[in-house]
Every structure is written in C-alpha cells, then in structure tokens.
C-alpha cells in the first residue's frame, strides 16, 4: 500500500453524486444542428478549413491547429456546414467565439479511421503528432492541449504519470462513470501516455467515495506492472493537480511552476481514452461523456454526447423543467460558471451541465462585512490568507497582493464556501488577478524599454568615448613629434620659406 499524505485546508461538501446514477452511460439523442467553437482549449483558436455549403463526414477535420499551442476540431457526424459565425460559447469570460454550424443529415457517416498497427514501434514524435491531429485536450475541465503537455521540454525527466480520477466536485460523476465503464480503455491509454513521457510509475488515483470505479480500475490494471490504483479520503479540492500530487507523492509543485518541473504529469481518465482511441482506432475527439444533473431534470445521468450539441438539447434529453431552474451551471457547483445562453454548445471541457432548482442551490445571500474570522484561511488548500487577499484586492494594493501570493490561488472556492459573511471571494481574486497580470505585463514592457534605452545610451557613450580616445591619441602623437623636433608646423613654415627663397632666386 502506498502511503497517502494530507493537504492543508480543504472542505467536506455534500456530494449529491448518486443523483446522476454513476456507472451508466446513455447516448444523447442526435441534435439537428451542432455548433463547434474553434477554441475548445487553452491556446490559439483553430482555423476553419471548411466553407459554408461544404458537406462533412464524421471524423473529418473542420478546423486546423494554428501555432504551437492549439488543437484541431473535427466533425462529430455527417452533414452540411450551414454557417461559420460568432456565437456564445461556454467560457467563464462570457465572450463569443467563431463556431462552425453543421446541420446533421442523420446518417452519421464517417471517414475511414485507421489507427497505428503497433504504437510501440513508432517514434515519440510520430505518436505526439497523432495526439495533436486528433484534437485531444485535457477533458477534465481545463482544456490544455495534451500533445503540448506531454511533449513539453520541461517534461524531460518525467517519472510518474497520474491518471486523475478524483472528481472532487459535487454532483459530477462523468469520470466515475467512465472509470466504471471503460476501465480497460483508460489503462490502455494510460500505458501509451506513460510510454510517451517515459514514466516508470503509473498511478491511477480515485477518491474513496468511488469504490466501484476503484475496483474496475484495479481489475483493468492488474496485468500492467507499472500501474497502481491509489484511493484516498474524499475531500475538496483533492482533484486539483497540485493537491493530488501532494496527496500521492508528498511533494509540492513549486509556486508558478507546473507538475512536470518535479517530474510528474497528470491526465484525466477520459483524456487517456482519447489518446488510446486516436492511436489504436485512429479516431479524433468528437464525443464526450457529460453528467447532466440537478433537480430540474427528471432523468439525470451521464450521456455520451456529440461535441457541439446545444446545452438545451442535452437538458431536454434529460427531461428539463425550465420553470424550476433559475441558473444552469457549466461544470460543477464549486468552480463551474453560469451559462448565459442555453444554445451554447457542449465542448471538450464540458464535464457537467447542472440544472438545480431554486431551493437546491439558493440565490447568493447579501454580502456582509469581513470579520477576519479566518475560516477561509483554514480552508485554503494553497495555505494563502484569503481574508488578507480580500482586503488588498478591495484596496487594489498590488504590492501586497503579490506579497500574499495572489497568483497561487487556484480559485477552488473553498474560502467563499465557508465564509460566514457570504463574500464572493473568488470573484474578487479573479478580477484582481486580471489587473495584476496586466501590471506585470506593463512592468515587463517598461523594463524592456528601459533596458533598450539604457543599452542605447551605453552604446552612444561608448562610441563617443572611442572617438575621444582616437582624437586624444592623434593629439598625443602630434605632440610627441613636436617634442622630438619634428614639428609639422615649423616644417611647413621652413618649406614655405625655402620655396619663397627659391622663387626669389629665380
């Protein structure tokens, strides 16, 4: 048995996970239209490679990656491209994004997909290219391009790959379900990933509130020597990458760093499946398992849903009662964001659509004064002082915000959850982080121009000094000649005199 370690802070939440019946997946009905955003990941948007009017097949690339940190987008089914336009997409910022609209023909015809014959024979570069072309991003919620994460130079000495099946947010059971239903595929994908990054240890991490998932994983991983299933006590936010690493390895990712800096890489179970599907079956990411739950849907559960499906269609598929809900949450109740438009599509990072009733998740209570009770600091998994950050954020005191490590906040929401004054702390931190980032950028810019200005000054001075030195040298040489009786002026006068005398003589 591997020793488990504890993290600072954390909270115990009402889980409400049984509501969505983990362990079962149903297909969501095929919608008539899909809206596929070109940015479903962190990084540069993909560039559409289809035009309005084009017919597309399932699995066909419809937008290609642009730049090093980007991933392509593929059509989940066959149909016609009917529009390419800006639409509301699931993103905390509430901004719009270019979406490729596909009107489905219902035939669900696919391009021929061919996987690698034996992935063990391929070079790492070839495998990475497969992962990149398949449009794989982290499917847990952050959406970082997987090929970039596992291909990074910083990950040269990876010793441990962690498959993060913690899923510590309440309500969500997508990872739980995937682990129960597709354990074999996860282990296959994890083995490929471990091979690609050169990890000697593969940890399959499952919180102890998911015993069925842990059993399924144990069974599937039995034959794989490097793999070990690890369970640990349920506590929010154990699923945070940094927290999980501390729980499993008793090591901390340095502030401002990434897990690869200490030789660790974390991947979501669904991401492992996506890697397996891309390499073995040649299939890109076009579907995902999403939890649709909350007391405003009659038939909550996990659905295998085409990317681009409008959230409305997914909700209606689960028997949505629009009258009892007043907010729809994309993601979990702790870190998810409120959906602004029900026609927003399901994207690669959509692990949950939560439709609570008003009594289930009540409207926020009025904010009261901070009494510095410190329960937030007790709950903070990063050991920050949320109460101090709150004061400095309100005072816009960036020096103190930096000194109190605002940027190390993972926005898990544990502080705001326990705050007796109902202060929306995370909201303050997000906005303060935004302005702090701006300031840091601004500072870098001005530092850069100062450095350039100073370099130019220095060069000008150097040149002036060189000129001065040359002149001084010339002067010194001339003076030396005078001293040696070799005065050029006297010589010229003598020459002139001699010439005159000669003229007179003639």
């Amino acid at each position, binding site marked *: 048995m591997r020793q488990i370690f504890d993290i600072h802070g954390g909270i115990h939440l009402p889980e409400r996970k049984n509501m969505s019946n983990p362990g079962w997946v149903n297909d969501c009905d095929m919608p008539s239209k899909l809206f596929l955003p070109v940015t479903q990941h962190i990084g540069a948007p993909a560039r559409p490679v289809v035009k309005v009017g084009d017919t597309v097949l399932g699995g066909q690339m419809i937008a290609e990656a642009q730049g090093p940190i980007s991933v392509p987008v593929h059509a989940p089914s066959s149909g016609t491209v009917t529009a390419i336009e800006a639409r509301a997409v699931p993103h905390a910022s509430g901004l719009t994004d270019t979406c490729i609209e596909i009107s489905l023909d219902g035939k669900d015809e696919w391009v021929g997909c061919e996987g690698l014959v034996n992935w063990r024979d391929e070079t790492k570069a070839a495998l990475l290219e497969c992962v990149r072309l398949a449009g794989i991003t982290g499917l847990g919620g952050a959406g970082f391009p997987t090929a970039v994460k596992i291909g990074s130079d910083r990950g040269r000495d990876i010793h441990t790959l962690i498959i993060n099946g913690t899923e510590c947010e309440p309500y969500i059971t997508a990872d739980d379900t995937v682990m129960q239903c597709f354990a074999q595929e996860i282990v296959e994908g994890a083995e490929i990933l471990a091979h690609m990054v050169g990890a000697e240890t593969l940890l399959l991490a499952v919180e102890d509130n998911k015993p069925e998932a842990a059993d399924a994983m144990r069974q599937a991983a039995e034959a794989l020597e490097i793999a070990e299933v690890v369970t640990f006590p349920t506590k929010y936010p154990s699923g945070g990458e940094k927290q999980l690493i501390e729980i499993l390895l008793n090591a901390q990712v*340095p502030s401002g760093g990434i897990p690869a800096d200490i030789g660790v890489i974390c991947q979501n179970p669904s991401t492992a499946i996506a890697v397996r599907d891309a390499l073995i079956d040649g299939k890109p990411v076009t579907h995902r398992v999403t939890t649709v739950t909350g007391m405003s849907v009659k038939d909550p559960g996990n659905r295998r849903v085409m990317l681009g499906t409008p959230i409305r269609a997914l909700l209606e598929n689960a028997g949505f009662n629009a009258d009892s809900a007043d907010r729809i949450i994309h993601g979990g109740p702790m870190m998810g964001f409120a959906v602004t438009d029900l026609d927003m599509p399901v994207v690669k990072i959509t692990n949950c659509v939560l439709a609570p009733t008003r009594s289930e998740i009540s409207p926020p*209570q009025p904010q009261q004064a901070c009494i*510095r009770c*410190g329960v937030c600091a007790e709950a903070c998994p*990063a050991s920050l*002082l949320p109460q101090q950050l709150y004061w400095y954020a309100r005072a816009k005191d960036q020096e103190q915000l930096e000194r109190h490590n605002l940027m190390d906040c993972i926005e898990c929401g544990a502080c705001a959850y326990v705050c007796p004054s109902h202060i929306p702390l995370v*909201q303050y931190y997000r906005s303060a982080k935004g302005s702090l980032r701006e300031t840091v950028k601004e500072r870098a810019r001005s530092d850069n121009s100062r450095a350039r200005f100073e370099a130019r000054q220095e060069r000008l001075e150097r040149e002036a000094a060189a000129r001065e030195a040359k002149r001084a040298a010339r002067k010194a040489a001339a003076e030396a000649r005078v001293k040696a009786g070799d005065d050029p002026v006297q010589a010229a006068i003598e020459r002139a005199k001699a010439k005159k005398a000669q003229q007179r003589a003639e």
Partner: protein
Amino acid sequence: MSLMQVSSPHVHKPASSVQQVMKQVLLATIPGILVLTWFFGPGTIINIVFGSALALALEAWALWLRGKDYKTPLRDHSVIVTATLLCIALPPYSPWWLIAVGISASVLLGKHVFGGLGYNPFNPAMVGYVVLLVSFPLQMSSWTEPRGIGEVPGIFDAFVALFATSSYDAVTAATPLDLFRQNSGMLFDDLIQSKAELTGPIAGLGWDWVNLAFLAGGIWLLRRRIFTWHAPVGMLAALTICAALGYDEGSSTGGGSVPFHLFSGATMFGAFFIITDPVSSAVSNKGRLIFGAMVGILVYLIRVHGNYPDAVAFGVLLLNFAAPLIDQYTQPRIYGADKVEVDE
C-alpha cells in the same frame, strides 16, 4: 426562464453566517454570567440588558448618521456581543450613566468611527472598558462582596443601583487582584489566609468559579470552531510561564502563584472572549499565537508591576496596535513556496 449570472462557487456552507457566529459567542457567555450572578447577584444581567438595548439604539443611530442601511447590520448581533462583553467586565450594580458612557465609547468610538463591523482596529468592548477605567476609577472598582462573605443584593437592589442618582451604597469590597496589588509586607500565603475573599478552592472566592465557567464556554466555542486554539493557548501559556518564573515561594514582593493568575480577574474571559475577537487581532495562526502570548506577558507585568489590578484590557489594546506588525512577519508558508524533490 431568465438565467441567473453568478460567479462560482454556487453553493455555500449551510447555516454559516455572521449571525450564527455571534449567536454562539453569546451562548458561550451564559455559564460565566450565571456564575457571576450566583456570586454577585443579578447586577451583571441588569448591566447586560440595559447595555445591549442602548448599544442597539446607538448602532442604529450611527448607521443612520453614516447613511447606511441600518436594518441588516443590526441583525448580525455583533453589537450585542460587544455590549455583553463590556457589561460582563463592568462591576455589577453600575449606575446607568457609567454603562451609557462605556457603551457609547465602545459602539461609537470603538466601532463606527472606524467604519463599523470588520473595520475596527481595536477591540470595541475594551475601548469602552478602558475609557471607563481611566475616567471613573472609583466606580470601576466597586465590586460587591461575593456570596459567602457578604449579602448578595436582589433584583430590586439592582434596579435601584442602576437608576440611583448617587452611587449605589452596597457593601463593596476589593477583588482578589485588588488585594494582591495593595498587599504590603505580607507573605503570599499569609495574604491568602488573612482574607476571606482570597480563599476559594483554586484562587479567590467566587472568581475561580467565574473563570472556570468562562473556560467552559471558551472550550465549547473552540469545539464549534468559532476560533482556533492559538490565541487563548498563547495567552494562558505565557501567563503560566511568567507566573511560574516570577513565583518565589510566596514572598511579600513576589508575583503570585500560577493558579492565582490563571483563575483570577478576567484571565479566562480575556483568553477566550476578548483576545479571540478576530477583527482586531492578528490574522494567521502563528500571528495569533504570538498575539495571545504577548497579551499574557503584558497581563502578568501590569498585574504585578503596574498601577491597575487587572490588565487584560490594556494588554489587548496594546496588542491591537501591534497586530498589523505581527501580520507582516507571520505570513504562512504557501503551497509550493520552496521546491521539494520527489523521491521515487
């Protein structure tokens, strides 16, 4: 349906509010108040009822003057906590004007001048207490004799005392800390023997039970996670260490025994109800430990070498000044602050 736009987290811990915190603090004072009432009569309760009513009125007035919503903040019970803590510290059977001056100083000078709840740099109850202590030293030292020595006044006496124009002329007696400070030339043990007020089972008569009752209330609050152990333990440990170091087998000029200091005056009340005020104390756990320890040291020094019999109020106010400085040097180590290598 209209979609509500709220930022995460969407859920909140049930039944967690400022009201809840304040209510529990009030509940935790009940054992202490009951023991005070047993030994000294209903004076303290009358103090609290009158003081709280006045404090609520003053808070509403202050909020109205400041152009604030004066209904919601009244419901957070924080002003009742301030009034209750101040009134517990006042001698029972204080005249109404003494209470009024104290409450006004607490609510207006201690709290609203700085911007209300959460903005006060000093503990409001202690601001009121110190204003009274330096202004009306005579009235502030008129504690009645505890049950067992004198007659305990009844409820009627309490009302007479509250509204009497002249000072209430019940038999007042010096508290154990007064006797200790005024001691000249007697060995500590002889002093204890000579005065009935000093012969309780642990420390002074009645006062040891009062301290035990506040200790019980404090431990309950600790278990309810209203505050962490750091400040109270810091203060009690520092006081214990100081008393142990200063104890010289009970000479006439010595510092008094450890139980005498722990269970006299406002020690437990201060440790669990005053220095635990989160607003005006240090922020981090380490900071609160230092904050408490410094208060403990000051309490000992002022009790033994100072001019006032008890010292919790002065100790707390002095440390309130120092809290931002303590915060500056006691920031906890954050996750990932220094690199840790993995052993694999």
